[in-house]
């Protein structure tokens, strides 16, 4: 608005009038155009009032009188503003009101957001104590297996990562790996002759290497790493054993010389504990790199290669080869103390391990509790299997069977209660034991005494019946999550706290403030939409009660009723209960694992009973009912995928025992397979055959 004194019409008015009008207009605080109109109108009024007063002094007096009659400029400004607002058209009123309403709402939203974001959870319930109480036996005594397992874990010596021992262990776990392994016998006769001739021609270079340096190089081979020197032996590099082997063989085939440049290398250090980096580097410093090093090394590599893979097994049912025995038995013997502790633990009646919070987690989430034992137990189970195989190779069948039993018993310790992860680990370890037991029974003719004893011991593993999966601990997980991510109190019992999202989605327990910044608006919006605490907990409990019922059903029962836990979860509105959506356990799958474990155990008991029957009566029974009637079995083994007994059929001098598998279809005893065509249990493209034990073969 132009300065009121600038208006040419006002120049003739006294200063007090100008000031008065200026004040009134200022107090109006309205649109510029409207204020201009009012200013013009007031100006015209004062001009008309003062036009008849000729002298300035008289005008001044009259003006002051008029100003007094107009009254308080502030009040007048307010009255004029109100009146002018009433004059505005309806649409303008609506627009103004709308902006005001939006402004008020935005302000309320800001205040609400500040209140919302500043909320903090209150941790009031110790769910860890409840979780521990779930697994705690009535009386803690010396019959607890955990101290033994813990000692076994501490005593365990793992094989060198990616080293030769690890490689040999993997062949049995993944028969497909054998296919990718180049073996001397896979080469043509001419190629074999060519390589042997080359070795013979260059052997002298290896023989000239001092014994001490030979030992260092052979030590490197244990790590599947080969030390190479480049740039006239001044630069220490390295390459993998398999890469070096392939390079040498190709060079020999092409009748070329093995040179530094023909070998792909990476950094010299293997970065593994125990690798003799220092000794090799010392050779450079002391100028003691062996003469014709590359030729000498190539001879050593080829010798090692031929020795390693000359008799690799072609199938999982073959006995331990000499090379497997040679490479794995030192590691197994090295771990004898660990294994013996494990066996001691397996003989105890229960295993109770008090779960603890992760000390790095200052918020103490159940999500982050310490579970270091999981991979350790798995390692010990793998050790147990190889201990059994080594014993079998050494002719110690009873000890080998004892190792399998130890695994089966240890597995049972973790089943039926506690966290889902622990229970699944127990299932896995137990499965190792049962599978190896059956494998042993297939490749070895067990005596009647051994069979009877084994049968009785396997039955004794679950004296009160097989322990299926118990998902109750998952309820505690969720309730703990709730108390960590919801405030305690307020509307609906509390709201979701946006700053807790990183912990919930798997970030480190203490996500930095800067990491939260970018996603905070999204987290805040999602948290505002989410249902309140009481509603969320009620909804989850309702859902979880259904899950508990579903978990008790066999896969067949769920299949017939078309019941899936995911269907119940999908009925819950995701946008309002996404916490439930992301924190729901895989109930169907976990329950299925439990029933598969049960079927495997019952199948093992049945197979041992059949084997006993065969030895005593020189033939297998026509049906499993005979075993039941004769007391060899207390109950028939039930197929979780048909709710009927496992399918048993006699063959020529053997039998077949199988489950119809996850496709609920009898495929006539044809085993399901993985993507590489190897037989696997519990696949939906075939049956799960317990007997005869399916054989996984290498195709080369």
């Amino acid at each position, binding site marked *: 608005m132009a300065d009121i004194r600038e208006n040419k019409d006002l120049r003739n008015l006294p200063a007090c009038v100008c000031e008065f009008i200026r004040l009134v207009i200022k107090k109006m605080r309205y649109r510029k155009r409207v204020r201009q109109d009012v200013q013009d*109108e007031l100006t015209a009024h004062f001009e008309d009032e003062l036009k008849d007063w000729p002298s300035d002094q008289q005008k001044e007096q009259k003006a002051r009188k008029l100003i007094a009659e107009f*009254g308080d400029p502030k009040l007048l400004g307010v009255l*004029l503003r*109100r*009146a002018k607002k*009433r004059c505005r058209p309806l649409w303008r009123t609506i627009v103004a009101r709308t902006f005001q309403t939006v402004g008020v709402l935005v302000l309320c939203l800001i205040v609400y957001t500040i209140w919302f974001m500043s909320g903090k959870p209150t941790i009031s319930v110790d769910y860890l104590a409840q979780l521990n109480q779930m697994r705690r036996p009535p009386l803690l005594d010396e019959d607890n297996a955990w101290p033994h397992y813990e000692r076994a874990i501490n005593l365990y010596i793992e094989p060198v990562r990616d080293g030769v021992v690890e490689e040999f262990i993997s062949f049995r776990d993944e028969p497909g790996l054998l296919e990718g392994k180049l073996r001397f016998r896979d080469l043509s006769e001419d190629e074999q002759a060519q390589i042997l001739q080359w070795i013979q021609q260059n052997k002298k270079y290896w023989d000239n290497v001092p014994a001490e340096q030979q030992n260092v190089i052979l030590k490197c081979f244990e790590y599947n790493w080969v030390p190479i020197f480049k740039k006239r032996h001044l630069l220490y590099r390295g390459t993998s054993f398999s890469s070096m082997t392939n390079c040498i063989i190709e060079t020999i085939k092409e009748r070329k010389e093995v040179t530094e440049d023909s070998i792909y290398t990476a950094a010299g250090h293997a970065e593994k504990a125990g690798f003799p980096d220092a000794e090799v580097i010392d050779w450079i410093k002391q100028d003691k790199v062996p003469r014709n090093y590359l030729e000498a090394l190539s001879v050593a590599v080829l010798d090692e290669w031929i020795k390693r893979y000359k008799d690799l097994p072609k199938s999982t049912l073959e006995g331990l080869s000499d090379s497997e025995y040679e490479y794995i038995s030192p590691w197994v013997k090295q771990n004898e103390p660990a294994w013996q502790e494990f066996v001691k633990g397996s003989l105890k009646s229960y295993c109770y391990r008090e779960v603890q919070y992760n000390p790095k987690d200052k918020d103490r989430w159940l999500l982050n509790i310490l579970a270091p034992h999981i991979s350790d137990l798995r390692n010990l189970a793998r050790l147990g299997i190889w201990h059994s195989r080594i014993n079998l190779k050494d002719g110690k069948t009873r000890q080998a069977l004892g190792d399998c039993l130890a695994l089966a018993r240890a597995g049972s310790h973790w089943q039926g209660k506690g966290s889902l992860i622990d229970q699944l680990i127990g299932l896995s370890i137990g499965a190792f034991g049962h599978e190896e037991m059956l494998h042993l029974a297939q490749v070895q003719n067990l005596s009647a005494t051994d069979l009877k004893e084994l049968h009785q011991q396997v039955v004794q593993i679950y004296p009160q019946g097989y322990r299926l999966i118990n998902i109750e601990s998952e309820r505690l997980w969720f309730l703990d999550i709730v108390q960590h991510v919801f405030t305690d109190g307020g509307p609906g019992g509390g709201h979701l706290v946006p700053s807790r999202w990183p912990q919930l989605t798997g970030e480190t327990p203490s996500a930095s403030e800067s990491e939260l910044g970018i996603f905070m608006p999204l987290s805040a919006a999602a948290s505002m939409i989410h249902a309140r605490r009481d509603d969320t907990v009620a909804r989850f409990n309702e859902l979880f009660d259904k899950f508990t019922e579903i978990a008790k059903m066999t896969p067949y029962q769920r299949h017939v009723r078309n019941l899936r836990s995911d269907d119940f979860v999908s009925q819950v509105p995701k946008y309002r209960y996404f916490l439930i959506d992301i924190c729901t356990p895989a109930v169907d799958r976990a329950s299925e694992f439990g029933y598969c474990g049960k079927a495997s155990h019952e199948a093992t008991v049945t197979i041992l009973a059949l084997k006993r029957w065969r030895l005593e009566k020189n033939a297998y029974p026509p049906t499993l009912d005979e075993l039941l009637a004769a007391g060899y079995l207390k109950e028939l083994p039930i197929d979780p995928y048909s709710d009927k007994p496992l399918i048993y059929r006699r063959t020529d001098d053997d039998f077949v025992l199988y489950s119809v598998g996850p496709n609920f279809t009898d495929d006539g005893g044809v085993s399901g397979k993985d993507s590489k065509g190897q037989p696997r249990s519990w696949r939906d493209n075939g049956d799960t055959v317990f007997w005869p034990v399916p054989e996984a073969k290498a195709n080369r």
Partner: protein
Amino acid sequence: MKSVGIKGIAMKFESQLLKGIAPVVVLEILSRGPMYGYELSQAIEQRSGEILTLGKGTLYPLLYNLEAKKLVRGRWEEAATGRKRRYYSITGKGEVELAKQKAQFKELNAGLKFVFGGALSPA
């Protein structure tokens, strides 16, 4: 309206008593022809025999309120001298409202006459 004076004697009326009169008076004056603010305030004083005066602080808020109710209409006009003034004229709706208010005052006056007898007649 803040004060009413019978000739020579100033008298203050209760503001609530006068509250409803001002708009009717303004509408009645404007019904006789368009006027601008100053002109209107002079006309009220003159045509009421100097009994009624409209306070300056009340005049323009009253006019704007009547304009908001669409009882009067304002428009700018430029005089021959070049001076701009805002003239107010009564609308049709204002005419109707004026007639209604005048009828109500007649009824009121008749009723008060019965109550006070001849006491309301001018001396």
